[in-house]
């Protein structure tokens, strides 16, 4: 009897796995038939407006096919993507698709991108397009932001660039702003004071944590700050 049940369970698991395999095969088949062309080849050509030898607003500096992007629920890995920090554009190189014998660089339509990741010197960075209401003072403008932490509060990084004239030549200088969203408000994190203000409902505990871990907020890297936010989330959950 026991073995009969095992056999039945085995047969059922076979059917289940076949059902799951069938579903993933169908999804693959669907995308190959509905979207046979390179889905990233959707957008304007990207025109260089800077002198790469002087400075570049593109990150990462050394382009490698190590990025990934999610479009229409499907993740495409190992693609050559760059992020233009000055114009807030996602730039795609498609070495396999030539038009007029040229490799084209495409500024990918931002509204089709659900998420993309880049390999930056600071680690893997996950970007998403965030919409902010226009004309509200103190808030960020809509665009792509690195999503570092999502929990009781959200921690994002704004990768940007400012245009400067250096020695009579236009140059683009990289800038980075760190922000926390908590209870419907946005806080720019410049040091310990602003961090404790952003997490004011647990300020005392977070301050103790910073002392214990000897984290200097102003110079902390994103992983250290993420650790603080994780601690804050754990505190909130323990209260709930």
């Amino acid at each position, binding site marked *: 009897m026991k*073995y009969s049940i*095992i*056999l039945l369970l*085995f*047969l059922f698991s*076979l*059917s*289940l*796995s*076949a*059902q799951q*395999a*069938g*579903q993933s*095969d*169908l*999804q*693959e*088949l*669907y*995308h*190959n*038939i*509905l*979207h*046979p*062309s*390179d889905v990233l*080849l*959707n*957008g*304007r*050509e990207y*025109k260089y407006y800077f002198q790469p030898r002087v400075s570049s607003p593109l990150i990462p500096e050394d382009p490698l096919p190590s990025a990934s992007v999610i479009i*229409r*629920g499907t993740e495409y890995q190992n693609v050559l993507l760059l992020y233009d920090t000055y114009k807030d554009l996602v730039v795609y190189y498609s070495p396999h*698709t030539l*038009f007029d014998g040229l490799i*084209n660089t*495409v500024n990918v*339509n*931002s*509204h089709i991108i659900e998420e993309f990741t880049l390999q930056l010197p600071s680690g893997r960075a996950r970007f998403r397009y965030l919409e902010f209401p226009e004309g509200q003072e103190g808030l960020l403008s809509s665009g792509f932001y690195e999503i570092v932490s999502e929990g009781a509060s959200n921690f994002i990084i704004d990768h940007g660039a400012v245009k400067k004239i250096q020695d009579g030549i236009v140059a683009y200088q990289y800038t980075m702003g760190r922000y926390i969203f908590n209870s419907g408000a946005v806080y720019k994190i410049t040091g310990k004071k602003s961090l404790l203000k952003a997490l004011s409902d647990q300020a005392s505990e977070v301050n103790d944590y910073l002392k214990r871990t000897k984290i200097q907020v102003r110079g902390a890297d994103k992983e250290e700050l993420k650790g603080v936010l994780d601690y804050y989330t754990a505190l909130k959950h323990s209260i709930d």
Partner: protein
Amino acid sequence: MNTCIDINLKSVWQKAVCLVCLGLLCWHPGFSQDRTQDSPQDRTLDRTQDSPLDFREVIYLQTDRDLYVVGEQLWIKVYKLDALGNKPDNFSKVVYIELLNQTGYPVNQIKLHVPDKSGSVGLTLSDTLSSGNYLLRAYTSWMKNYPAGDFSFRTISLINPFRDMENIGVRSPITVSEGRDTFHRVQTDKDLFLELNFDSSTYGTRERSKANIKATDSSGNPVKADLSVSISKSCLYNDHRTNIQDLVHSPGQEEPGFPAQYVPELEGVPELGFMPELEGVVLGGTMLNSLSDEPIVNEDIVLSIVGKTARCQVYRTRDKGEFYFNLDDLGVQEIVIQPADSSVSDYYVELEPDFHNGYDHPLPGSFYLDTTRLQALNQGIINMQIQNIYKPYRQSNAAGTPDVSEIDFYGEPEYRIQISDYILLKNTREVIKEIVPKVSVRVKDGLSSLWVDNGNNDPNFENKPLVLVDGVPFDDVDQILNISINEMERIEVINLRFFLDGHMFEGIIHFVTDEGRMAGLEFDRSIFRQAYAAFSEESCFRSPVYSNDSLKNSPLADFRNTLYWNPDLQTLEDGSSSFEFYTSDDTGDYTVIVEGISLDGKSGFIYKKLLVQ
């Protein structure tokens, strides 16, 4: 000795089981198929490719009640389940719902966008429909590859008091069907147990009513579940109304005649050919040469939608001239399909039917009114008429088209010329010459063409740009230039190369007219242009709120036959949920039905009576 023999027997049995299992392992397509050898690009919906066929889905179709009067809304909920485990699943995103009359003719058809595991919609029952039984059926595009008997069905009865009342027979209640419900069914560990408690056993008119629900499994543990609630006049339910547990636990045993909920048998031989719809409605078809009837292959073709927003898609036709586009628009749209290369002129387009043709399942039988309910039903008919009289004074039930800011496929243009911002010029030709940057008109052999300057101090692009009028590619530039400037709203220019679905355009010029209907332009070649219904517009159940004396004393009569319909009631981690509503002006017996399914496929059903006096 006996023990020894026993062990040997077990050993033999174990070996046999192992051998059978190994054999099955080798035979089963899910394991034996070498996935690495099969390039995805080479695969098509071919019956010999059996792996995708392993996936089956089913729909459970639920309505707010069983009996309706024409002019009312029929509220529907659909659950998408995987066929094997009966667990909620989110594979297909489009559910087709049809109302068939007794001859199998569809009298109403909608495509419902269901981005989650379940979805709901309201269907208006036209007053042109005759009294009788109707069959509601629901399926996905993927399910169309299998026999129609595998679709989900539910019979509803319709009364049209203004015509064909002679179609309705009257008879005494059928004792066979009485008491035929799931309450006598043996409960299993696949059951979802629902507890429903109201804050009172009876209510007055226009009174607030609140109920708490608790969902647990057979061990009493709280369960997260997706439920629906309907509260309607008791006379509008059938005695033999089936519920979600009949689908999940006891298929096949139905009363004589057509079952209220037809239960599919998933043994049909598949006839493949329909794509699953994992995003929106898949618009499939074939492009053929009108002279030779041969398929037009490897040709970039453009689907566009007539309107002020440019929504173009490009697809390269396949080996048999097939093409597939994904549509996620609401309501009826005017679509145009044409080759991207305007020199391809001798073609015609055949679209695949979107709804299933025909039926190979039983149709509903004759409709008989239960003599014991005649008085109550008569009150229901009067209620419908009162509701319709006061309908214009109430907020519309239809949520309408959501105010979604539509984006042109090219995003923000490089240049946008709003005609009203400038002095009134004579015609579009003059506007282009005087106002529109980066665009020039050339005339050769009496024909005009538009060119875009790419702004690099280089010569213009070598190829003509994509010229759109109200979102539709249009290459007769002279006609465009003759459009009265009074009809033109704006002109948008992209003076960069633009890549769309693998096709490259050297610039885009988009002329948008005031009405967004192409200003009466005529194509100099035959094109495929027709109205196409994508998703049906959303609707939600609304009922009056009598939260203060002013509202409670409103002179608007309230005679809802369905007091409350909530197709999306989710229980929390602790298994609890609640809902509240206000009773109407109509007193009498109401039936409350709560049913649904948990994330792991446990299904449950509960009903209660509610008295309004």
